[in-house]
């Protein structure tokens, strides 16, 4: 399936290559570079590029292209999904996934890649198993290793691969047994000029951090499971139990994992927690334009909106902007024309606003379109869909775990057209 993998940075250097079958010359990447040149922006490089003898499938994350070389028909999503899994694994191992980090840990990276694929077919992709095979580097371990000469390679064998719950390592022990669940919902919305909602939907995930001894069997139930319209599960969740009882029943992996992601059914109207008032105008004659935006809370159920960041891609004709925010800081990059305003918390008594003028290119005609405003925000302790976890029970182990559930609402792709 997957023949080779090349890691290419944004300046077009191949800084890592790995082959699972016979070696494919790196000159195959020339086709990729060609496509990259044509695409102008990294985002627009096509994910599938045919070449005379190979096919190049790539993903772009963390400013790195992960280019897989394949030779024969294969479901493209198979490769793409796998590449994303590779990136996730790196992130899991090193905290960040960047060129210097990969270069520093090239041996671990190589060992991990070796275990993930055999002859181009995925072998071990569960992070629990991988970590058992190859321990992630930590500062402490590096120090210990240099002193004692021990290694990063686990001396245990990957027993997890053999068990019926391949996602969980065996023999887990903790002194404090705890299980945390974060219910995080994101609002994707497009708001039109006049402030009415064109489309809005809620997508949620439940991320878990489970540190429990032994082989706990957990069940998680909701107060209002009907809200969940479409769900996808971590492989540990039992399908049938969900189908019949709407209960999540699972033996969790050890550590952090995404238990479930869901979509809230479209019938429920989405409460939009913020509004943006805007007045952006370009005049044909003058080289100055007016710019004014105000952000305010709408339906927040009494919670404060924090972490508000407003970004906007200004039209090419804008040379510079002189703005004064009532709170927070703002930046405008005259090269990329990106305006970014870090607002922080919204105080309903004193709404944050950003006012000022734009200087436009002299003589150029006024832009057709006002810029779109992208919004980010966070609301703690609130799941905007109203989803509530009812209870979490543990079976199979004797101790009493500490349980915690946290709710949060965030902006997903939240756009305001002006």
């Amino acid at each position: 399936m997957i023949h080779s993998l090349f890691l290419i940075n944004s300046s077009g250097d191949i800084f890592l290559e790995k082959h699972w079958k016979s070696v494919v010359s790196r000159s195959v990447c020339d086709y990729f570079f060609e496509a990259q040149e044509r695409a102008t922006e990294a985002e627009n490089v096509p994910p599938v590029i045919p070449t005379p003898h190979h096919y190049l499938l790539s993903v772009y994350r963390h400013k790195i292209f992960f280019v897989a070389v394949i030779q024969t028909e294969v479901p493209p999503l198979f490769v793409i999904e796998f590449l994303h899994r590779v990136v996730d694994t790196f992130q899991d191992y090193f905290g960040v996934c960047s060129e210097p980090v990969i270069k520093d840990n090239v041996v671990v990276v190589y060992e991990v890649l070796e275990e993930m694929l055999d002859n181009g077919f995925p072998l071990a992709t569960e992070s629990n198993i991988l970590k058992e095979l190859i321990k992630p580097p930590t500062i402490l371990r590096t120090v210990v290793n240099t002193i004692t000469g021990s290694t990063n390679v686990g001396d245990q064998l990957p027993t997890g691969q053999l068990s019926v719950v391949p996602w969980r390592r065996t023999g887990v022990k903790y002194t404090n047994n705890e299980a945390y669940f974060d219910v995080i919902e994101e609002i994707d919305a497009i708001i039109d000029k006049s402030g009415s909602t064109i489309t809005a939907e809620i997508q949620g995930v439940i991320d878990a951090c489970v540190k429990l001894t032994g082989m706990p069997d957990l069940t998680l139930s909701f107060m209002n499971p009907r809200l969940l319209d479409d769900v996808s599960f971590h492989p540990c969740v039992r399908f049938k139990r969900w189908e019949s009882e709407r209960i999540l029943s699972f033996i969790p992996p050890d550590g952090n994992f995404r238990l479930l992601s869901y979509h809230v059914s479209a019938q429920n109207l989405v409460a939009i927690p913020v509004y943006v008032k805007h007045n952006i105008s370009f005049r044909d004659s003058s080289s100055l334009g007016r710019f004014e935006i105000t952000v305010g809370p709408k339906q927040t159920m009494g919670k404060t909106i924090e972490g508000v960041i407003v970004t906007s891609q200004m039209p090419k004709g804008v040379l510079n902007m002189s703005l004064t925010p009532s709170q927070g800081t703002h930046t405008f990059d005259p090269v990329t024309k990106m305006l970014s305003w870090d607002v922080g918390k919204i105080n309903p008594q004193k709404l944050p606003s950003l006012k000022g003028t734009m200087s436009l290119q002299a003589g150029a005609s006024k832009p057709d379109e006002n810029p779109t405003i992208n919004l980010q925000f966070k609301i703690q302790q609130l799941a905007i869909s109203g989803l509530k976890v009812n209870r979490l029970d543990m079976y199979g182990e004797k101790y009493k775990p500490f349980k915690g559930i946290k709710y949060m609402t965030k902006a997903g792709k939240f756009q305001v057209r002006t």
Partner: protein
Amino acid sequence: MSSNSFAYNEQSGGGEATELGQEATSTISPSGAFGLFSSDLKKNEDLKQMLESNKDSAKLDAMKRIVGMIAKGKNASELFPAVVKNVASKNIEIKKLVYVYLVRYAEEQQDLALLSISTFQRALKDPNQLIRASALRVLSSIRVPIIVPIMMLAIKEASADLSPYVRKNAAHAIQKLYSLDPEQKEMLIEVIEKLLKDKSTLVAGSVVMAFEEVCPDRIDLIHKNYRKLCNLLVDVEEWGQVVIIHMLTRYARTQFVSPWKEDDGLEDNEKNFYESDDEQKEKTDQRKKPYTMDPDHRLLIRNTKPLLQSRNAAVVMAVAQLYWHISPKSEVGIISKSLVRLLRSNREVQYIVLQNIATMSIQRKGMFEPYLKSFYVRSTDPTMIKTLKLEILTNLANEANISTLLREFQTYVKSQDKQFAAATIQTIGRCATNISEVTDTCLNGLVCLLSNRDEIVVAESVVVIKKLLQMQPAQHGEIIKHMAKLLDSITVPVARASILWLIGENCERVPKIAPDVLRKMAKSFTSEDDLVKLQILNLGAKLYLTNSRQTKLLTQYILNLGKYDQNYDIRDRTRFIRQLIVPNEKSGALSKYAKKIFLAQKPAPLLESPFKDRDHFQLGTLSHTLNTKATGYLELSNWPEVAPDPSVRNVEVIELAKEWTPAGKAKKENPAKKFYSESEEEEDSSDSSSDSESESGSASGEQDEGDSSDDSSEESSSEHGSDSESASEVGDKRTAKRNSKSKGKSDSEDGEKENEKSKTSDSSSADSSSEEESSSDSESESESESESESRKVTKSSMLPVMALFVRERGSKRKSQIILSKLHGSCCGVKFSFYTLCRRST
């Protein structure tokens, strides 16, 4: 070695080629590229020394640096002899890194690679299954043709290994050997055949992968394993699921008759169909319906459905394409929700999924209509995503939603991404042609766009308007006049050419303007683009034919200009037109028909989706994405007219079943029940026992080929204890099924049972009924309550329990009962019990 290194240094100084060659053959294989690395020589020298040292830390350090070199793509092949010595190192990390090196360079240094083989051969006999597996993995990854027989032998042995993990690796090795030496195909197929029978979920994905690579045409190998694969599917690891689903899709298309015949194009009647398609009804109303779905066909469709909920996009897509290609049209609808969910994923996933949705939405609008808004474009989407979304929006447009869509398109047209704006205009054009009610609105909107400041937008509008007007040559004189005025300002060649063509075609409708346009064009002819020049010539010719009084001279002037043009196409066209329209003595019969030739009715262009022709590729494949046949693409066959014999899929367990059932018949339900319920409680303890399993290896594996035969037997005592108490708990649930159960003596009565059951038990047990075909009765009974994992646990944990029963003579009768329950689930187990029984008595 020190003397060797000395010699190298000397040579690198000024060694002669011949000497160098000799030296090379003696220590390093002939293929080692020397010249290139003379500069690296010193560095490699100290690496070599480190590898020679006694200390593991130094070796490890050296290996790490070497792996670093490999990762960067630098050649490290000349270190081969030094590295290969460490293949037997005790240190696991060194060993692993040596493996990495070996796999990378063995192909280039075949002779030296052979030195390592014996180490692997020894490891293949190791009592620890994981060491056996990894030895097989590396051995098969070394691409040295000489060792093909050794590999073949190793694969054969490993395929019969007691450990499913080793068998999994054997399946992987099959592909490697096949690519190394395709002549082994026949032998490998034998191994594949054997491994396909394997009941472990670990093996299933890998062996199907091997099957797809080595012998995808041997569909006959699948028959007997079809039901088993369907039933195992949910528990196979996600990557294996993708491969199996794709294979089963192909299989289904060759083995079952089409479920589409009745409802072909019956989108509107979906509702009626749903009702009648309900499973029970389908079974009971058999006589009324001419078509009934093969239960195996239904089994596949039903068992893949939960996988739509997978977190893995590839699995979801695989199920989606399966539904698209083999399920009745009325049931395809359920995949749309899951596909739309994938749109939240990364850009690359979106790209592939949108392409597939685009293809689907052409054929079946209804599927994605409720999700229309999910395809609205965001300004932050990459261009390729935007255009795909537009494509889908166009496909979904209908009378009901067009007004909303057009409003949405208005925003897009203003986008700063001009490529996208242009694509939107084309989209509007397509909507206008597809939905006749909005044609005028669209046309007006497009005309407004003609005054847009951006040239690309205007140009695109002109082109689209041209196509629209061509399709309905009604009274659009105004628009044409308006466009004629635009000629002064527009510079984009395609747009200019389009306007000229339009005027030429409609020159009789705008008799005043057309000659004037020609006059202007004659003036600027020389500075025009070739495309425009051709259209000027055409316009001239058309006017000459219709209005020669005003334009005769102008046309001749243009023809003269064209005669001396630099481009031969234009010279050519000029000559052709002159001969055709200007009467002279030489002009033949054709010139009489000049008017007919130039002003003939032209067929309107078809504005079609670029995804129209993609549906002949299987969805979700690389070929579909590229819209060309990729290497190794396997065509989906058409449904057969008459279904091949379905009995080939029957597995012969009936015989065995009869052999065993009588003994336990009276007490059939309860004892079996105990096991399952109990195992659910005991799940954890038996899980943790898998630890001990791996440590003990499969050393004691004389008795059977069961999955985890040597699961610690101490476990069994506790399970035995809890045995009786759990019996009462489940007793009541049991009665519900009893009546249906007692009938089911053998699997041949399947159809009946399924009927019965689906009435009595709830929806989840629907799955279980089909389970019976490949596994025993008891197995399926548990289905409805116990989960898939626990099921597996049960299987493995049952063995020790039974062993215990057998040992305690008092409960011998009981043990027989249990045996009868079990034989179906793992036939191999049966034999082990014979032996056990014999021993205990």
